[in-house]
C-alpha cells in the first residue's frame, strides 16, 4: 500500500528566508506522525503545502495520490484540516456551522454524532461567540472531521489549552486513530508528540534534524543521570560525567549507563560500600529535544 503522504526534497523560500530546505518524509496509512519543532521551524509552511494552501518551490509531493496544489475539490473531499486560529462566523450556532461547512463533502458524518464526538453536546444550539477557547477548538476539530476524511491535518491542536482540556483533546484524537484515520499533527509540545504520535519528526531551521519514535530519539543523545548519596567525593571513581557533589548527593551524567553502573557497583562492592538511594534517571524527551534543537541552532542551521 502506498503511503498516505510522501514528500521528497521539499523546499520553500520567502524572499531571502529559507523556510524549508529540502524536507523528505512519509506518513503511512493509519499512522500518526507528529512534526515537532520550535516556532519558526517551518512546521506550518510544510503542512500548508501539503494541505494545498501554498505552493512548494521544489520537491515532489503526493498526498493521497494527489498533488495538493492542483488536487482541487476531489482532493479536499478526502482530507480534513484543523488550522490554528481560523475564523468562523461567530453569530452561527454550533449545529448551524457544522451543517453549512459539511454540505460540500460527498460523504459526511451526521451532525449529532460529530457534536457528540467532540463533546459539545450541551452546546449544540449555543452561538459560537459564547463558547470558550477550548470549546471553539473542539468545534474546529468537528468541522475538520465533518467530511469523514481519510487524512486529518491537526496544526497545533492544543496550543493555549489548560492541562485538563489537553487531556480531553488527546483522548479525542486517540479516538480518531482507532477509526483508522491517518493523522499529521504539528506541535511544539513534546509530551503531546510523545503521547499521540507513532513517529516524530523534529524540524528545526527548515530541515529535519531527527526522526523516529519518541524512545528512539533518546538513544545515544543527552544524558541519563546516576545518583546516590555519599559522605565525600574524594575516593569516588572518576568517570567521564562526574562525580559532581551537591551536598551529600553524588551525580554522574552518563551516555552509557550500563558500563558506568558496572564500574560504580564494582567499586562499591570491593569496598563494602552501600550506594544509598541509587537512582538512574533516563533523559526526559524535553532534554533530548533541547539537545537536538540546540545542536542545530548552534551549528548546522541553514542560512
Amino acid at each position, binding site marked *: 500500500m502506498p503511503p498516505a503522504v510522501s514528500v521528497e526534497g521539499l523546499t520553500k523560500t520567502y524572499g531571502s528566508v529559507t523556510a524549508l530546505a529540502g524536507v523528505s518524509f512519509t506518513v503511512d496509512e493509519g499512522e500518526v506522525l507528529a512534526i515537532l519543532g520550535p516556532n519558526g521551524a517551518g512546521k506550518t509552511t510544510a503542512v500548508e503545502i501539503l*494541505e494545498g*494552501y501554498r505552493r512548494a518551490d521544489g520537491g515532489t509531493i503526493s498526498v493521497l495520490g494527489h498533488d495538493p496544489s492542483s488536487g482541487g*475539490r*476531489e482532493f*479536499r*473531499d478526502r482530507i480534513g*484540516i484543523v*488550522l490554528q*486560529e*481560523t*475564523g*468562523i*462566523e461567530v*453569530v*452561527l450556532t454550533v449545529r*448551524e456551522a457544522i451543517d*453549512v*461547512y459539511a*454540505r*460540500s*463533502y*460527498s460523504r459526511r458524518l451526521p451532525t449529532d454524532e460529530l457534536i457528540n464526538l467532540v463533546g459539545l453536546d450541551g452546546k449544540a444550539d449555543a452561538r459560537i461567540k459564547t463558547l470558550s477557547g477550548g470549546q471553539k477548538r473542539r468545534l474546529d476539530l468537528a*468541522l475538520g472531521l465533518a*467530511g469523514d476524511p481519510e487524512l486529518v491535518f491537526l496544526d497545533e491542536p492544543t496550543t493555549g489549552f489548560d492541562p485538563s482540556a489537553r487531556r480531553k483533546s488527546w483522548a479525542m484524537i486517540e479516538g480518531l486513530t482507532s477509526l483508522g484515520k491517518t493523522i499529521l499533527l504539528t506541535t511544539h509540545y513534546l509530551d503531546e508528540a510523545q503521547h499521540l504520535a507513532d513517529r516524530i519528526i523534529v524540524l528545526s531551521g527548515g530541515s529535519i534534524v531527527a526522526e523516529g519514535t519518541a524512545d528512539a530519539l533518546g538513544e545515544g543523545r543527552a544524558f541519563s543521570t546516576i545518583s546516590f548519596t555519599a559522605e565525600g567525593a574524594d575516593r569516588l571513581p572518576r568517570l567521564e560525567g562526574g562525580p559532581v557533589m551537591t551536598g551529600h548527593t553524588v551525580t554522574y551524567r552518563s551516555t552509557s549507563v550500563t558500563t558506568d553502573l558496572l564500574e560504580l557497583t564494582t567499586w562499591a562492592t570491593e569496598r563494602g560500600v552501600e550506594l544509598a538511594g541509587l537512582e538512574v534517571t533516563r533523559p526526559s524527551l524535553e532534554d533530548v529535544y533541547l539537545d537536538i534543537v540546540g545542536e542545530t541552532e548552534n551549528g548546522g542551521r541553514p542560512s
Partner: protein
Amino acid sequence: MSPARYVSLVWGQIRHNNRLFWRTPAAAFFTLALPVIFLVLFSVIFGDQEWSGYSFAQFFAPAMAVFAAVSSSFSNLAIGVSYARDQGILKRVRGTPLPAWVYMAGRIGSGVWMAVLSVGLMFVLGWAFFDFRMVWDNLGSALLVFVVGIATFSALGLAVCASLRNADSSPAAANGVFLPMAFVSGIFIPLDDAPQWLVILGDVFPLKHFAGPFREAFDPFHEGAIIGWEHLGVMGLWLVFGMLVITRYFTWDPRGA
C-alpha cells in the same frame, strides 16, 4: 457532480449568507434602514410639492431603491468579504471541497436577495405612505438595468475587497466611494443646475448609469426608450474593470495587519 447538486450548494450558501446578514445588525441597518430613513425624511420634507399630480416620492423612491441595491451588493461585498478574509473564514472555506465560485455565488446571490427585498420595500413604503404610483410599462427595461447594475456593483465590491490590505479600512473605503458617487450621480439631488464638470464626473462613474434609466422606467412623464446603450456600455466597462482587479489581486488568505 450533478447540476442539481451545484444548485443545492449555491442555494445553501445564499441562505447561509442571508442568515449572517440578519444576525449582523450593522449590515442590516446600513443596507435596509438607511435608505428607508432617507425615503421617509426626503418625502416628508418635500411632501407639499407636486408635479402634475405626482408626488416627490414618485421620483425619489426608485432612486432610493438603487441606493439600497448598491448598498446590498457593493458595500456588503466589499466589507463582508474583507472581514471574512481577515478572520480566516475564506481560508477555512478554501480547505473544504466547496468550489470557490459557489462561495462567491452565495455571497453575490445573498446581495441580490437583499437588493430585491429593499427595492420592493422602497416601492411598497412609497406607495403606502407617500403616493408613489407604480408604472408597469417599462418593467422589463428596469429589470435589465437592475441585473447589469447589480452585476457591476458586485464585481466592484469584490474589487475593493481585493485591493485592501485589511478589513478595518473596508467600511471607510466602501462608503467613501459610494456616498460621494451617489451625490455626483444625482441620487439625492437632481443635477439639473450642477456645473458641467460635475455632470461629466458623474457620467464617468457607473452609478448614474444604473440610477438614471432605473428612475426613468418609473417616471410617468418619460417618453421613448429607457435603455440607452451608453448606460449599459459604461456599466459593462466598469464590470470588466472590476473583474480584472479581482482576477489580479483577490486572495483567500488573511493579509495580516
